[in-house]
């Protein structure tokens, strides 16, 4: 195993982590501000990817496709918030889980209805395709590097939004004390719609970015959604900082375990057995990580008890 390969895997882990952060940030904001557990968050990821793929097919522009993903997911998010989600804020978690599960069924099957069961493809734009040479002779796909950069940029922007802007102050007030924001004269229902649409837009954006690496298909959102749940549970529900740290931890653990465990077992077992044992354990690694974190901190790394 060479150092170059390891660095490549670390970059892959970062790219995966950054993408998970885009998903997890919305989930954790929505939970922190509105107290809502949203299973349908993965649907916005899917909607973003489909919007991007359709736009790219029609216009040929990748940037327009990304813009479309943001707009489509945000609009879908705002509509869902105003029609369904807002009735759920005062309900218990069970009702929230079931209602948003119902939304998944509607979104997934609805998308299948519109686009069919076959996957769509979103091409990486010319200017980002191909590898780039990094120091130490590492060749790494430009596009993946761009995802890391864009993701980190979004993270910085999100922190700035929350720390510096008026709406950020309202969001933070909403997290600590719901009655206070009403007292501040904030239109809560507008704030909630905004936060929900923002979260949806981030998820849709992630879907579009990843859609260019993987195929765009119905059901693509749910595996990512569950990983995003693991992320925010590890980071502490409601904490953006926790979501970032959790996302990077999960991204790196998942990628590196898949890479290192089979190799490690290869030292003590025959190759085929090592590959199968290693990969089964690797697929469980992030859940083991989560269980470990919760054993010591039941409310996650940055969670409030």
């Amino acid at each position, binding site marked *: 195993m060479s150092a170059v390969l390891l660095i490549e895997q670390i970059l892959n882990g970062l790219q995966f982590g950054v993408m998970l952060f885009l998903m997890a940030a919305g989930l954790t904001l929505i*939970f922190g501000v509105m107290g809502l*557990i949203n299973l349908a968050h993965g649907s916005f990821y899917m909607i973003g990817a489909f919007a991007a793929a359709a736009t790219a097919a029609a216009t040929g522009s990748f940037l327009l496709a990304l813009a479309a993903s943001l707009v489509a997911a945000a609009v879908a998010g705002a509509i869902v918030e105003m029609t*369904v989600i807002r*009735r759920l804020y005062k309900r218990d*978690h*069970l*009702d929230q*889980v*079931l*209602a948003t*599960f*119902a*939304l*998944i*069924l*509607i979104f*997934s*099957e*609805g998308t*299948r*209805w519109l686009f069919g069961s076959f996957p769509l493809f979103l091409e990486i734009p010319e200017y980002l395709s191909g590898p780039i040479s990094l120091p130490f002779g590492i060749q790494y796909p430009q596009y993946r590097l761009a995802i890391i950069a864009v993701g980190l940029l979004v993270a910085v922007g999100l922190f700035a939004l929350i720390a510096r802007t008026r709406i950020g102050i309202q969001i933070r007030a909403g997290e600590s004390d719901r009655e206070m924001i009403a007292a501040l004269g904030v239109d809560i229902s507008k704030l909630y719609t905004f936060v929900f649409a923002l979260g949806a837009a981030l998820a849709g954006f992630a879907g579009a970015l990843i859609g260019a690496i993987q195929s765009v298909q119905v059901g693509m959102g*749910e595996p990512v959604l*569950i990983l995003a*749940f*693991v992320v*925010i*549970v590890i980071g502490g*529900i409601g904490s953006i900082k926790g979501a970032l740290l959790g996302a990077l931890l999960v991204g790196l653990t998942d990628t590196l375990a898949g890479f290192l465990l089979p190799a490690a077992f290869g030292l003590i077992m025959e190759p085929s057995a090592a590959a*199968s044992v290693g*990969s*089964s354990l*690797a*697929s*469980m690694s992030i*859940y*083991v990580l*989560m*269980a470990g974190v*919760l*054993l010591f901190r*039941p*409310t*996650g790394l940055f969670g409030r008890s």
Partner: protein
Amino acid sequence: MRKETILNACVLLGLLAVPLWALRVDEPFIITLATKAVIFAIAGVGLNFSLGLGGLVSLGHAAFFGIGGYSMGILASHAQSYTPLMGWPLVIDGTNSMPLIWLFAVLISSLFALVIGALSLRTSGVYFIMITLAFGQMLFFFMISWPAYGGEDGLVIYVRNGFPGLNTLDPIQFFGICFALLCGVLLAVSRIARSSFGLALGGARQNEERMQAVGLVPCKLYLIAFTISGAITGLSGALFADLNRFVSPTMFSWQMSGEIMIFIILGGTGRLFGPVVGAAVFILLEYLLGGLSEFWHVYLGAILLGVVLFARGGLIELIVGREVAHD
């Protein structure tokens, strides 16, 4: 007699009557559907034990459903290939006797429920939901990448397992077995619900602080409930595997966990017969809507959304009204 009791009796009679009618008109497919409804009902009764009675919203019950399924799959596949399951330290052979498989399924799934419950119950609320979901996913991915028992493709069992004195390949006889088990499980659960344990568990759901003040430990009650709940859902998994003569990692999928939860909410959370009504209606919807459109999940989603938003007590409440307090 209470209205709900009458309704419950009607539901059981209906579940029994449909396959008998199907037998007369020679529609084995309907019998299979009814069997599926009964098996799903058992899975739902299992989840309802922890969710309805104890208020533990587990989104990972597919784990126990899958473990039950693979208990059957693994034991039967070893019997099929005449290889021992374990050679050391003690020899365990595969089997294709249903009662043994059930016993095994219940034991293993309750063991898993005990461990998963002990870890998950360190948390509560939304953390609990997500952790149970994550444990379910953990087992799902494990089954996919574990090649010994078929991995992603699952396991095919060619012959349905046997039950002494019955021909299990006859749909109506297999239905009878499942129906009898459902009745047994319902009887046991209704007894436990009225027992001291059930009273304490329900008390913990309503007010943990109160339970501690009278000297009862909510966490212990929850763990016992979660374990029993996992065991019942595990049993249904073994039956489901036998119905299909096939097990695959999809039994562990989180959509399965969601579906089991749907049975409960459709019928009525916390009601003894909630999951039975819910599972029957679910299968009926699948049959009717599935015939109408390939995309019947859209309608299912809309119906579910409607029930959650506007009819929180589920179908049973729509029929018999709000539950009255009783001892």
